[in-house]
């Protein structure tokens, strides 16, 4: 997730920005009471290692600018007079920052850290912070293809992403200046340009209120089937329902879809009666869901189609129903477990609505035609061949479409931002201007 990887990058950079007197921290000589523990060659090697880690963070920044660019528009851009001409949506500050970061990446002689370097812990805490930041940057590269890039963000989320990039670049510029005394240190390419363009981006992004719901986007590990024997009690039902959601990723044939719909009808009804005293709100919601599936079942009686699979999904649905039947009503019900069903039901309803719409669009599902009388009703001398099936898209079969769109499809809700989203960013902003603690003033004679 972007929130995890971005938060880790910010946390490690904040920790680094609070560390001053870098020579001492990598074993160099500092004040006279602390002897040097590393040679100049060793410190140079440490510096090269840090630059390899920094290169990973720089590449992350560059990829973030590329991902954010298509969805952002500058506040300076105007709507063109000619409606057939595209508006100039270039974001001046972001373009400048992207170019500056790209040149910094190209100009650096450091290579990206290898997998071993990212995975192996280091003795020095300072290098260890850099390693964690580089690891988070490497993991964060997945986020841009999985929910953050190519116009998937709204305007506020894009501005939040730009502000994050700007803060990370500012932090890198400050750290670059602080590390300049490390032997053999190679400074960033035109750091002042990087700093100013990052500042311009940050200022421009602050014109809109941030939307930290972006933290909930990005790559997530794929869910897998829970294998093994059925778990006891309601856990087993949840296990089967979870597996059903995963098995429904493959397109089901019409008969298997009818079996899945039948299982969901039974499951909703039985669960609703099970929780009627414990959770009245869930009882109402699941009773409504049962009614939806009853109507869907009636609609699907005259729908056929052999394309697709779905046998495993149908069997998981049957597992869920049979396991639920075995539960006694007086067993203790975990409220958290019950609300887990709501999440799975939402995902499954959404998928079934997708399947119906996809089946209509791809002509995978057909509506059966009722038998006509033997006499030729058209009055022609030669009776036309009778159609036995018609594509759902051709006939006006709007009830099933309305059912999928209005009742099965869950109401879209905005992601809630994590609680620590604003604090994580505020900590980095505070660390950028962090000053070492000053010694207390010596008492003067007047005191």
């Amino acid at each position, binding site marked *: 997730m972007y929130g995890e990887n971005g938060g880790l990058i910010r946390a490690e950079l904040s920790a680094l920005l609070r560390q001053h007197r870098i020579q001492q921290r990598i074993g160099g000589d500092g004040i006279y009471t602390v002897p040097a523990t590393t040679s100049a060659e060793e410190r140079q090697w440490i510096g090269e290692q840090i630059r390899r880690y920094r290169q990973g963070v720089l590449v992350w920044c560059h990829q973030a600018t590329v991902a954010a660019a298509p969805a952002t528009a500058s506040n300076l851009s105007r709507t063109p007079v000619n409606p057939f001409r595209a508006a100039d949506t270039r974001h001046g500050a972001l373009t400048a920052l992207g170019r500056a970061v790209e040149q910094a990446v190209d100009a650096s002689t450091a290579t990206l850290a290898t997998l071993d370097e990212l995975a192996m812990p280091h003795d020095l805490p300072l290098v260890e912070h850099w390693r964690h930041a580089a690891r988070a940057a490497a993991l964060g590269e997945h986020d841009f293809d999985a929910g953050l890039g190519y116009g998937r963000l709204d305007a506020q989320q894009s501005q939040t992403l730009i502000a994050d990039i700007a803060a990370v670049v500012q932090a890198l510029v400050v750290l670059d200046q602080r590390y300049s005394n490390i032997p053999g240190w190679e400074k960033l390419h035109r750091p002042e340009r990087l700093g100013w363009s990052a500042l311009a981006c940050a200022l421009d992004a602050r014109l809109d209120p941030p939307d930290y719901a972006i933290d909930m986007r990005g790559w997530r590990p794929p869910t897998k089937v829970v294998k093994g024997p059925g778990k006891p009690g309601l856990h087993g039902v949840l296990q089967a329902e979870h597996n059903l959601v995963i098995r429904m990723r493959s397109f089901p044939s019409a*008969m298997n879809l009818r079996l899945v719909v039948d299982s969901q009808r039974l499951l909703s009804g039985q669960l609703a009666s099970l929780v009627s005293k414990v959770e009245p709100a869930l009882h109402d919601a699941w009773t409504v869901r049962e009614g939806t599936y009853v109507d869907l079942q009636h609609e699907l009686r005259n729908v*056929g189609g052999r394309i697709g699979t779905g046998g495993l999904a149908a069997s998981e649905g049957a597992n869920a129903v049979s396991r639920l039947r075995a539960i006694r009503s007086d067993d203790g019900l975990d409220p958290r477990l019950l609300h887990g069903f709501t999440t799975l039901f939402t995902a499954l309803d959404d998928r079934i609505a997708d399947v119906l719409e996809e089946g209509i669009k791809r002509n995978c599902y057909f509506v059966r035609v*009722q038998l006509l009388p033997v006499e030729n009703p058209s009055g022609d001398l030669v009776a036309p061949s009778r159609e036995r099936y018609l594509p759902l898209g051709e006939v006006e079969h709007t009830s099933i479409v309305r059912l999928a769109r209005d009742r099965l499809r869950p109401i879209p809700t905005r992601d809630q931002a994590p609680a620590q989203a604003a604090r994580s960013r505020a900590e980095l902003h505070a660390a950028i201007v962090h000053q070492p603690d000053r010694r207390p003033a010596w008492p003067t004679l007047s005191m």
Partner: protein
Amino acid sequence: MLLAHAVTLTEARSYLAALADHARTVEASSAYERALLELDWIHGDDVPALDTYGLTDDRDILMAVATSAIEQLAAYDVDALQIELLLAALDDARALDEP
């Protein structure tokens, strides 16, 4: 599929659907629906549309005509074992529907 076979099949499907619609309990309704699915599966999902419009809501009559229509399918080269299994599923659904 001959026209007579299709007509008998349509009747059997329609009666099963009507039984599912008028069942007293959710479990019985679902059992009738599964019997309907089994009937469709026997025919490879190559079946005509059903129509429950105008059918009686008396479950005893519906049960009798559904059983009769399913038994008639044997005359159209439908496997006798499949028909017996379907009738057994129908009896199970009926048992769930008893008051």
